[in-house]
């Protein structure tokens, strides 16, 4: 029981990660792929935030009488990674718009067959 409840966050990280990764690989729709990529990245954010938690640690704001704080560094790190994720998503979606303009479709198979028929 301890293995499941105690590591709840980590189990969720694994489930979300696999769901996102599977979506990226299995879907042919380019927007869905980006969505999957996003889910995949979110799991890593969750992983970092969970790492920062210290058992019975307080919020990391200096206060009298508190000796044990949670580690704030992973949260700061993941802020940077979130920004990177936003940039990647927007660039990816911008590319999808250009692909739609150039091919008239965002289905991977259709794009592939259009390129082959040239």
């Amino acid at each position, binding site marked *: 029981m301890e293995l499941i409840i105690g590591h709840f966050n980590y189990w969720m990280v694994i489930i979300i990660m696999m769901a996102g990764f599977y979506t*990226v690989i299995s879907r042919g729709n380019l927007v869905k792929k980006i969505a999957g990529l996003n889910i995949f990245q979110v799991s890593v954010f969750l992983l970092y935030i969970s790492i920062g938690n210290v058992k019975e640690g307080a919020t990391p704001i200096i206060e009298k009488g508190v000796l044990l704080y949670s580690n704030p560094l992973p949260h700061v790190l993941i802020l940077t*990674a979130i920004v990177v994720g936003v*940039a990647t998503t927007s660039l990816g979606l911008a590319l999808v718009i*250009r692909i739609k303009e150039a091919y008239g479709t965002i289905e991977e198979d259709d794009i592939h067959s259009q390129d082959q028929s040239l």
Partner: protein
Amino acid sequence: MIESHLSLLIVVLPLLAAPIIAALPNGRTPWLVSTLVCWSVFAMACMQLINVNTGNVISYELGGWAPPWGIEYRIDATNALVALIVSAIAAVTLPYALKSVASEIPKKQHSLFYAAFMLCITGLLGIAQTGDIFNLFVFLEISSLSSYALISLGKQRQALTASYQYLIMGTIGATFFLIGVGLLYAMTGTLNMMDMAQRLPALYDHRTIHTAFAFIMVGFALKLALFPLHIWLPNAYTYAPSVVTVFLAATATKVAVYVMLRVIFSVFGFSFIEKTPTDELFLILCVAGILMMSFYAIHQHDIKRLLAYSSVAQIGYMMLGVGFGSALGLTATLVHLFNHALMKGALFMAVGALVYRVGSSRLELCSGLGKQMPWTFAAIVIGGLSLIGVPGTAGFISKWYLVLAAIEKQNWLIVAVILVGSLLAVIYVWKIVEVLYFKPAEENNVHSSVNEAPLMILIPTWLLVLANLYFGFDTDITVGTAQQAVQLLLPGASQ
């Protein structure tokens, strides 16, 4: 004053230049500013290499925060060599870019193009300079995001799908790296690479460390296009604008190889790698990659794609040295990093000259052009000889050290693979030469009026071609620096 902040300036100068260039009006000014920036970065990278080539290590504390709390830029001979490769290729590529970009990219995008180019340089140099593993991730994403944008600017619509494919695979790779870094931080409580290296040996048997290592290796194998994770590379190189192909082919994968070296030898230490099947795995993948990708290269009908497949094969040669884990092997890897940047830079530039005149790099459209463009053709021949590894060219030096390393390990199979790989290179280089020179130009050829590429394209190309010949004779800079670097990567290894 400038001397002491050199390590930071190399990264910050192009970073600051990028928004300024983006705001400049389209025309020649963006190009002029970026060229000036790149040449000054190149000068600084040379000074930096001279500073550390004596065995010094520069430690620069960002914002005055002492490591391991603050971000540290830690420069030894390895970083300095990689930073020199990136900045030298950038400095040669930019003069070449003027004409090539003008013909391939719409004028209204020029200032944005050069801004993205500057960001890409910032990212690659940042990876080379930093000593902080999370900072490395940020720079990796800066360089990747800008290169996705640069690749998508190619003329054909396949450039868009190639860029998209690279974006998906590149992001998966970077995220894998991020997971690895997170696990390492959870175990060691530090992000500074040197600090991490000191804390890791006590944790060698811990399963989390092995998981972290696996994530980082797979992530970067994607980034450096190690066979079989190379699928994004041929399309990206084929459809990107010529300038972008030249720059990325010569630098991006090299920087990723450097990160592999750094993580394996400086952070984890080779004694950790030997406990895992990583080194054998590298050797197997490299051998498969060299043979299969060279075969693929032979069957291509587009010169850019042919050279792209050859690049994947060449990455195999670089990673062979890592798999050996010996001083000679690492020397070969580092020398080949430098030499391959020179040869692929020269070859892609010459192909870019063909694209400039003909508008395509498809083999059937280029038949007989060798006689009309003799200088471009000669550049391809010499670059090709260097790729094969003919004595007198830079390629020979790296192959020589690689074969020595394989013989030292008594691994005759790999000696044979290196030689067979070179023979396959003869075939695919000959394929280009045959079409360009010996195939008669077709009747009613629309390209019969094509003449030699302009000087602004020929001069940078020939600079790299001559460098290929020069570094085939004078190995003080390449081998000397590589040996210096190896002493720091593999402490205790005798030369």
